[in-house]
């Protein structure tokens, strides 16, 4: 046991003893993080950062009055003070009707998950991390970029959990998240690509990301202002994190639905919300998924949960307290508010080239987007989003891509899902800096999307 681990177990024991004095239910989660980031721009490293942190996350309940807190001030004085404060807060807090209980277990956990989320090579990556950045940079420059910027996160986390029902467990996980953006001499011609995974040798390829970014950047040179109008759009997997994934990962959260906080308010199981070819899962056991784990915050085993089945709502993801009568938790605790794990879309029959061939209206290829904003979270989830990096008008059935610029997507979540008419063959894991959780998505063809542009 290393020093951090030893210290964490000591803290857990101390906290447990305090919580037993005033809580009816409690859960302790210790996160032991060793995280690193290399940020680069103008093809040079700007800063190399490392974090070493123990963070304690507590759920406390006193006869269904609940509190969620996090502490990383680890002195005994600070912990004592925080818990004394919590005791006072619980006395004045109101009954949380959304919390009933945690499950008693016992549970069995899938032993094979650990090896699919932890890679010792990532823990030992310090000596070669800069080389990874250099190799990807060089590849992008060779593809035609003038300069690159990006970010490379890598690290490991140990998770230790214990609760008042006598359940306990721990696991280790690693992650890699590499993003590179290539710029041409014309600063408005750019391309971006991402590669992320838990393992160095499974699903992670920074050089390919550099190549993709460089190629998109080069193709985007000479872009002209696009014409506003109605288009079909073909989106890259990372665009799904902003346009498609919020429905399964945010709106299909049982808490959000129950509290009426998102655009699926009024919808229920069995309602059609997407094209028939779309199915979506919340998958907590996905191999090499960045949010894969053996159990959730209630120590309930995670699972693969079907959320949207061929276009229809199948179920919402939930914890124990918010589960319908007779239904089990889907392994997505958050003890008070459920959390998504990995959002996984179904795949279709098409390569990217084939999607471009079959689209029979004016079609834009959108490689990246950002600054998605909502007019309202209420139905239908009206939003606009700004394509950035290479955007192309597809002509001659994909044989020619004309770079265009300055167009804005104006749509809503209902439209996006209902008008997705074709899917790519392969999934790619993406976890963008604006996303809430990792998404496994294919290329998607969406019909009849309104694109606008500035009037002055």
């Amino acid at each position: 046991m290393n020093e951090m681990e030893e210290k964490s177990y000591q803290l857990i024991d101390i906290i447990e003893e305090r919580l037993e004095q005033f809580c009816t239910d409690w859960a302790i989660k210790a996160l032991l993080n060793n995280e690193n980031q290399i940020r680069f721009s103008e093809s040079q490293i700007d800063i190399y950062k490392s974090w070493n942190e123990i963070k304690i996350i507590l759920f406390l309940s006193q006869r269904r009055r609940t509190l969620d807190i996090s502490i990383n001030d680890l002195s005994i004085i600070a912990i004592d003070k925080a818990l004394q404060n919590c005791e006072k807060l619980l006395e004045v807090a109101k009954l949380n009707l959304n919390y009933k209980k945690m499950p008693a277990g016992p549970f069995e956990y899938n032993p094979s998950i650990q090896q699919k989320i932890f890679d010792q090579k990532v823990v030992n990556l310090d000596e070669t991390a800069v080389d990874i950045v250099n190799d990807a940079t060089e590849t992008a420059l060779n593809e035609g970029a003038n300069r690159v910027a990006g970010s490379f996160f890598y690290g490991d986390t140990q998770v230790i959990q214990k609760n008042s029902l006598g359940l306990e467990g721990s696991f280790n996980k690693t992650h890699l998240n590499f993003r590179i953006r290539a710029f041409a001499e014309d600063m408005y011609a750019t391309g971006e690509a991402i590669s992320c995974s838990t393992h160095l040798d499974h699903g992670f390829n920074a050089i390919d990301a550099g190549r993709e970014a460089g190629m998109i950047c080069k193709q985007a040179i000479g872009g002209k202002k696009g014409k506003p109008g109605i288009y079909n759009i073909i989106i890259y997997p990372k665009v799904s994190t902003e346009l498609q994934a919020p429905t399964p990962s945010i709106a299909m959260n049982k808490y959000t639905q129950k509290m009426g906080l998102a655009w699926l308010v009024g919808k229920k199981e069995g309602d059609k919300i997407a094209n028939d070819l779309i199915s979506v899962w919340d998958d907590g056991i996905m191999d090499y998924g960045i949010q894969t784990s053996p159990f959730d915050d209630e120590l309930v085993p995670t699972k693969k949960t079907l959320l949207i089945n061929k276009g229809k709502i199948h179920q919402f993801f939930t914890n124990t307290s918010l589960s319908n009568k007779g239904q089990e938790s889907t392994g997505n605790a958050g003890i008070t508010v459920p959390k998504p794990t990995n959002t996984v879309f179904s795949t279709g029959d098409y390569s990217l080239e084939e999607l471009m061939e079959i689209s029979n209206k004016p079609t834009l290829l959108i490689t990246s987007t950002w600054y998605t904003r909502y007019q309202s979270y209420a139905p239908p989830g009206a939003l606009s989003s700004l394509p950035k990096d290479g955007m192309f008008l597809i002509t001659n059935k994909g044989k020619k891509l004309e770079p265009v610029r300055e167009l804005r997507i104006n749509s809503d979540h209902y439209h996006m899902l209902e008008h997705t008419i074709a899917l790519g063959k392969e999934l790619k894991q993406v976890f963008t800096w604006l996303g809430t959780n990792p998404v496994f998505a294919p290329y998607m063809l969406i019909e009849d999307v309104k694109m606008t542009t500035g009037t002055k």
Partner: protein
Amino acid sequence: MFVNDALVEFALEYAQSNGKYCEYVEIRSEINSTDTVSFINGKLHIGNLPIELTSDAFARKSGINIRIIADGGMGMTSTNQFTKKMIMESVDRAYRNAKRSGKQRKTPIGMSDEKVYKEEWQSEYKINPMDVSLEEKIKFLQSFVNIFNEKYPIEFIHIFVLLAEQREAYFVNSEGSRIRSHIPRVAFIPVVIGIKGGGQNEQSMATYATSSGWDDLISWNLEEKVRNTVVKLSDIILKAKKPPEGDIDVILGPDVAGIIAHENCGHPSEADRILGREGAQAGESYLREHSIGYKIGNDCVNVFDDPTIKGSYGFYLFDDEGVKARKRELIKDGIFNEMLQNRESASIFRTQSNAAARAVAYDREPLIRMANTYFAPGDYSFEEMVEDVKLGIFMNSFTEWNIDDKRLQSKYVGQEAYLIKNGELTNSMILKPALEISSPGLFSSIDAQGKLETLEWQGAFCGKSEPGQGCPVWTGGPFVRLRKVRLA
């Protein structure tokens, strides 16, 4: 628990000893505390929210940040374990990180020469919001929930969030700076969504925020403001009509002027964006292609940023690199006048830092950030602006907005908006007027700004960087008039 000063000095000394040669070292120790209480559709909630209003909703953080420049590269570490052994390991790691970065770089990282200060500062307040009892906070929020006990012609979803926070920091560097700071802040965030069947809805989200203490916040007549919002949302859904077409004039309310000052001027003026350092995160800046002195708009356009405004949400007196804060005149008389600089960018542009380096917590690097960004007041009353408009709209608030990653193409969708016709403000409400316009197009359309007494502020959490840093700021402005623009 604060890292004791002796340990901070030990870290600084250790970083410059045992064979380590550093061009620059800084150590920042902090305690960050956050308390969040919410009501969601009338139900009390103490904890994290599923929508991105807060993170670490009820948190106590204490740690130390070490930043080193060695061999021309920069390394940073942070830790919350306060043993000498861990401090030494963290320093060693930051040093190694710096050297590894430096080896890869073609040009060394430098820092501008700045005056050294030994100071203590804090915001002025009477009641620290962190000391306010939960009962009082619940009572405060309950008063807004009670607004919905009345009958309205439409349905509502309502979320009320009260965020109290406190930052205590001790900053030292290898040049002799020693700066201690203490600043509590409080923000009240009402989110109200009016819904009528058939897909009609309107969402309002505001942020009322201050560093002047709890007593300041509760003096702002907020219940009346929220009640007015509720009534207005009903009116918009039930009465608002399509906007006029063609070239019109638009008068922007302070809310809208403030967000424009922030998005179309403040962000693109950040020197790290201009240099490309945020290229893969928050983006770059259209000003990269222009120099100081570029004519960006009409002569009447002045946009400033000032951290020293008392009581402001973005208040500070020294930044997180130890530089003394001052007002920055970003656009002056229509000209791109000044960037927001930290010491690194200032060394590249061969100028001085203007104290724009801010970090939101101990585990974050200081970056160039805004503080309180605003259109400077001008000479017009609101009535004078209106009477000179033949056909136009008055956009008093906004709902949806976004802007591209070069800060060039922006969109602002109006919420409470009225028709102006033949020099008179009518009662006709306008539905979702969308101003989609480039930054130069916007600044070259402004011909009038309201007088000082019309200047108002909104709080906001400005997002940037990776890992993300939601920085407390104010955005502000008087009324601002644009001539001959076309709504989307």
